[in-house]
């Protein structure tokens, strides 16, 4: 009997339609039908994709409280497209990002939104952390009043409850179905998609609005903590600061952003003639159970194998692996080891990294990195890993796409890694929709 960490034989006839060896009914097939995003280098999928192909970075110099100049991936989306100024004042940056992306996704989906039964819509948004921004702001504010807690804002609690970003989406869009914000460290973007797939398969909802968001650049604490850990990137040229797999990397570039999709059961999407970006054919999450911050290639590989087993595919069925690598030494080495173990004998699998362009978008990372690769189904191009000028031999990988995008022909399957602190691992596998 195979362990879940061992490869399964290719089942190409039923590619992507098996779960534990049992054929999926069409009602269990979940498809992505709309995309909304804001990344440091793009506020729509076409703009973002184009900038990934031409190696346009979104990392800039940035001032943060107490620490002064740092580097960050900063978004510049139209905050007032779907919210009033008062909404922005009342809510959070994470909420605002989520509202923008959710509305963009619904608009992109072409669904007849005014006539959608809002009680059957679920909102599932992954976050790395939440509340730090508002708490830091309030402490800074009361420091100007000799720490008199009587000037602590009554807005603090609704801004810092853990469901904030998903809740703000429901308030903005009049959604009365369930909403959850999923705390999953930097695996959160994938976790949002996974929750959506599960809830759709359980028939808990008919439409899911899901993905991940990050407001992390607005808390000095995340920069200070990475700096204290020796894991905050510095570089005289911000666009070259994020250097996964490169011998001269020196840490993480923190970014904000959001990536949210509409997901539906296949028959619903087909019935309304929806544009289908991709089908989610596999996913997995597991835990290292080992260390607060250090990753574990063994558990990462197990997570990848489990996702592939659920999808009913083998490593050679995967055309693109979107790596998680954050440009920390140990993180890069561990993921490279996991990828070599799984894809070392898979000559048609290509590997890239999106953080090298935009930094680490934390809760949004998994979502943005998956979405940046989705257009490969149409153009057959893999965007690169940039800033890779001196490959760390410990990170050498077959078919790592370095500095220049690469045309690889038909792309049918993409696997997205997203890992986080406390040893949380997540993998999502999508395939080109083929009917």
């Amino acid at each position, binding site marked *: 009997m195979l362990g879940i960490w061992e490869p399964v034989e290719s089942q190409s006839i039923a590619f992507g339609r098996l779960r534990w060896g049992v054929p999926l009914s069409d009602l269990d097939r979940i498809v992505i039908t709309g995309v909304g995003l804001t990344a440091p280098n793009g506020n729509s999928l076409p703009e973002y994709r184009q900038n990934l192909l031409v190696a346009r970075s979104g990392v800039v110099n940035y001032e943060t409280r107490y620490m002064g100049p740092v580097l960050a991936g900063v978004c510049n989306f139209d905050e007032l497209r779907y919210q009033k*100024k*008062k909404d922005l004042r009342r809510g959070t940056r994470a909420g605002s990002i989520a509202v923008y992306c959710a509305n963009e996704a619904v608009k992109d989906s072409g669904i007849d939104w005014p006539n959608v039964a809002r009680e059957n819509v679920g909102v599932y948004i992954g976050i790395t952390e939440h509340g730090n921004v508002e708490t830091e702001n309030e402490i800074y504010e009361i420091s100007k009043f000799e720490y008199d807690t009587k000037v602590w804002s009554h807005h603090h609690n609704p801004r810092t409850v853990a469901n904030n970003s998903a809740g703000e989406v429901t308030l903005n869009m009049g959604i009365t179905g369930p909403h959850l914000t999923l705390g999953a460290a930097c695996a959160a973007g994938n976790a949002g998609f996974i929750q959506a797939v599960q809830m759709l398969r359980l028939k808990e909802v008919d439409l899911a609005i899901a993905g991940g968001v990050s407001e992390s650049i607005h808390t000095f604490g995340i920069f200070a903590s990475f700096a204290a850990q020796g894991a905050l990137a510095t570089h005289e040229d911000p666009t070259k600061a994020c250097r996964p797999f490169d011998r001269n990397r020196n840490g993480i570039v923190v970014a904000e952003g959001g990536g949210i999709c509409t997901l539906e059961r296949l028959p619903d999407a087909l019935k309304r003639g929806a544009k289908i970006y991709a089908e989610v054919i596999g996913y997995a999450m597991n835990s290292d159970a080992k260390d607060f911050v250090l990753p574990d290639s063994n558990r990462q590989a197990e997570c990848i194998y489990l996702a592939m087993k659920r999808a009913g595919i083998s490593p050679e069925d995967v055309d693109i692996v979107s790596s998680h690598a954050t440009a920390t030494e140990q993180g890069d080495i561990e993921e490279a080891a996991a990828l070599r173990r799984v894809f070392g004998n898979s000559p048609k699998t290509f590997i890239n990294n999106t953080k090298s362009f935009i930094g680490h978008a934390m809760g949004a990372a998994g979502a943005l990195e998956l979405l940046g690769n989705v257009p490969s189904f149409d153009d057959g191009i893999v965007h690169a890993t940039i800033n890779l000028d001196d490959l760390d031999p410990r990170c050498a990988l077959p078919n790592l796409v370095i500095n220049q995008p690469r045309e690889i022909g038909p792309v049918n399957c993409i696997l997205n890694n997203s890992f986080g602190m406390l040893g949380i691992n997540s993998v999502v596998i999508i395939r080109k929709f083929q009917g």
Partner: protein
Amino acid sequence: MTSDQIRQVILDILGRIAPDEDLTDLDDARPFREQMELDSMDFLDIVMELRKMYRIQIPEEDYSNLNTMGGTVEYLLPRLKDVPVGA
């Protein structure tokens, strides 16, 4: 501060907490909530801003005095009459 100066302070606060509203024709005799979108959290913002700006503690039982611009100015005048503008 004079009544007119207090009125301007309140207008400035309303401008910050309700930035989408046009306050040009605000009627001092009518309740704020009849003239603009103002919920209980916004109302607490008015109280909080006054607390921060002038260290005034407004007890909850007095909140009903702040329903209109006229009532607010009347309530604040004796409490702010010795406070210079911009304090």
